[in-house]
């Protein structure tokens, strides 16, 4: 009797659970349905795969800020084509980035991608985009490997790190330095920039005494710092992701080390300032040119009033990438094939960061860089 009533109760719970699950599914479908409603023909679906909640989330946020301003400009432009931006979060995980790309290609039917956070994500997504015949206009991915492995549907407004490596080495040589160490992220981006620095150092007469990886997610760099300190380099190239870079700088200060630290865009992020605090003072980095002149000034004041902070290349490049894509859509039409052909033929597009044309690898020609240094916990152009 007891077990019979227990069974009946169990069955009742099961039925109630199933009913709740079905009701939830119906509510979800009703909620999602309006999203999948057909869009006007002049609204062009474009996808973006950003890190919005992972270890490089500040990059994703900066990219999105720039793209939001671009969407406003596109909405008020005279071109009949408008862009519906579909944002996906990769959490800086190549597997999630690939899944997001699949959803954008198959379900959302995007005609192009604009901006991906992280070179590893771009290297994973680019072959899938090529298979789906969807062009990409990327903004911040800088791995030299993308010049070849990105394929012929991949374009970027950010120069490959081969240029950044040469620039950083020449900068150190201008300051009279002769010895260096490279602490690099064990990722496609980190290894690419490390190789670029080492290659350039060999040609410019800068000795690289030490090359040490900083694994993503590593939190204890004290033994590594002792090793770097024992080697006595005049400059440390810190090519680590923001979280590790900030902690490295902080732990260097706590270990009482006084060494010149140089790097690239990862050192410009909020994570570095948060993790390193006051220890970031004096750290130097180079960013791909963020532009100058009246257009750049207007963009800066608009960005400042909207977000309360100065725009860096990390927001300006994504703005340029999306505006450039819209320009091509307006010129050639919204089909992926027409967009790709338009990107191939594009010459002298005037963006905020400068004049953009693509070479045969989809890389920008004639890249320029700006120098920055931290004073206290904020940085300024040198």
């Amino acid at each position, binding site marked *: 009797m007891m077990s019979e009533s227990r069974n009946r109760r169990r069955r009742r719970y099961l039925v109630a659970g199933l009913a709740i699950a079905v009701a939830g599914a119906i509510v979800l479908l009703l909620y999602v349905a309006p999203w999948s409603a057909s869009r006007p023909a002049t609204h062009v679906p474009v996808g973006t795969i950003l890190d919005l909640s992972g270890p490089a989330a500040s990059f994703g946020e900066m990219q999105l800020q720039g793209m939001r301003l671009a969407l406003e400009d596109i909405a008020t432009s005279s071109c009949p084509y408008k862009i519906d931006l579909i944002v996906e979060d990769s959490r800086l995980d190549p597997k999630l980035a690939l899944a997001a790309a699949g959803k954008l290609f198959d379900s959302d039917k995007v005609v192009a991608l604009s901006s991906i956070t992280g070179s590893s994500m771009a290297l994973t997504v680019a072959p899938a985009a090529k298979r789906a015949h969807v062009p990409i206009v990327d903004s911040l991915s800088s791995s030299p490997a993308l010049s070849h492995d990105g394929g012929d549907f991949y374009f970027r407004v950010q120069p490959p790190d081969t240029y950044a490596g040469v620039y950083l080495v020449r900068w150190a040589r201008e300051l009279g330095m002769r010895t260096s160490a490279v602490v690099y992220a064990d990722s496609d981006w980190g290894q690419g920039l490390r190789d670029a620095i080492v290659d350039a150092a060999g040609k410019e007469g800068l000795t690289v005494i030490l090359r040490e990886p900083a694994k993503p997610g590593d939190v204890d760099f*004290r033994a590594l710092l002792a090793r770097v*300190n024992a080697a006595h380099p005049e400059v440390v190239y810190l090519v680590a992701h923001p979280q590790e870079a900030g902690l490295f700088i902080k732990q260097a200060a*706590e270990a009482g080390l006084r060494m010149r630290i140089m790097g690239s865009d990862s050192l410009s992020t909020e994570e570095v300032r948060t993790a390193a*605090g006051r220890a970031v003072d004096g750290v130097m980095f180079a960013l791909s040119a963020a532009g100058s002149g009246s257009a750049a000034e207007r963009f800066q004041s608009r960005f400042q009033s909207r977000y309360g902070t100065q725009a860096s290349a990390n927001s300006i490049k994504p703005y340029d990438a999306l505006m450039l894509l819209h320009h091509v859509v307006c010129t050639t039409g919204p089909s992926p094939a027409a967009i790709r052909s338009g990107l191939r033929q594009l010459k002298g597009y005037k963006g905020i960061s400068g004049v953009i044309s693509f070479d045969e690898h989809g890389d920008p020609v004639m890249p320029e860089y700006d120098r920055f240094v931290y004073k206290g916990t904020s940085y300024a152009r040198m």
Partner: protein
Amino acid sequence: MHIDFLLDLVLIGLTSGCLYSLVALGYSIVYGVVGVINFSHGEVYAFGAYVGYVSIVMLGLPLPLAFLLSAVSTGCLALMAERLLFRPLSSGQNLSLLVAHIGLSVAIRSVLALVWGERFRTYRTPNAVSEVLRVGGVALSLHHLLVLAATALLGLGLWALLSHSRFGRALRAVSQGRDAAAAKGLPVVGTIAGAYALGGFLAGAAGVLAGHLTELTPQMGVLMGVKAFTASVLGGIGRPWGAVVGGLVVGVLEALVGGLVGGAFREAFVFGLLAVVLLAFPRGIMAPRSGDRGRWSQK
């Protein structure tokens, strides 16, 4: 090779080792009385670090109070888990208990990620850089000294508790045999609950100390759990003082490998060490050569 460089590495290793020891103690104490590895222990440590974040950064509490709050919170968390999850399963197979521990670890990690997100958190304010103390050519930050001093104090307190209290005696008795302990009228169930709470307290203390040295992420307990577990196996799991020695040995060796060979080999070394210890010294390096009567026979 300069002697200061080696001394630097040893000091770095000792501070990491202190944290490993505190967490390893939890593994050892719980294993001593239950006979099962508490695989949720690393996440209890992470939970303590986040309670420290709330106390220090959000509530602005002074460090000693935040330290106490974190350690007590994790002690309570472990106590609750024992009462609501582990105790009901303790009469069944050890396998069920093991699965429950793993399940709890995943649950804590998920809750931390849900509440705080995957982005790192830090205790530090922009202007707070630890002062650096220099002794000869060796530099040590005040945060590292704090870890060393707090661990020494906790170790002293633990020694007093285990050696000179009724709870300590009950813990030893239960670890040597539950039935015999029950026959002597000792509160076996309460002692097991106390072991979990004590382990949780020490893990929370380690969490809030680690928060001063590093950044907080929901995943921070995973690697710490592995290293502390290695330390407790190295010292002979079930032997609290073996866990302390094991933690310090793992910390120092890890720093020496990181400094002399390179950071890429550090974690590989810890896992390799675990494998070697299990092969060569199945009962740990602190196990007596003969006459080992129980898990706590060596005080």
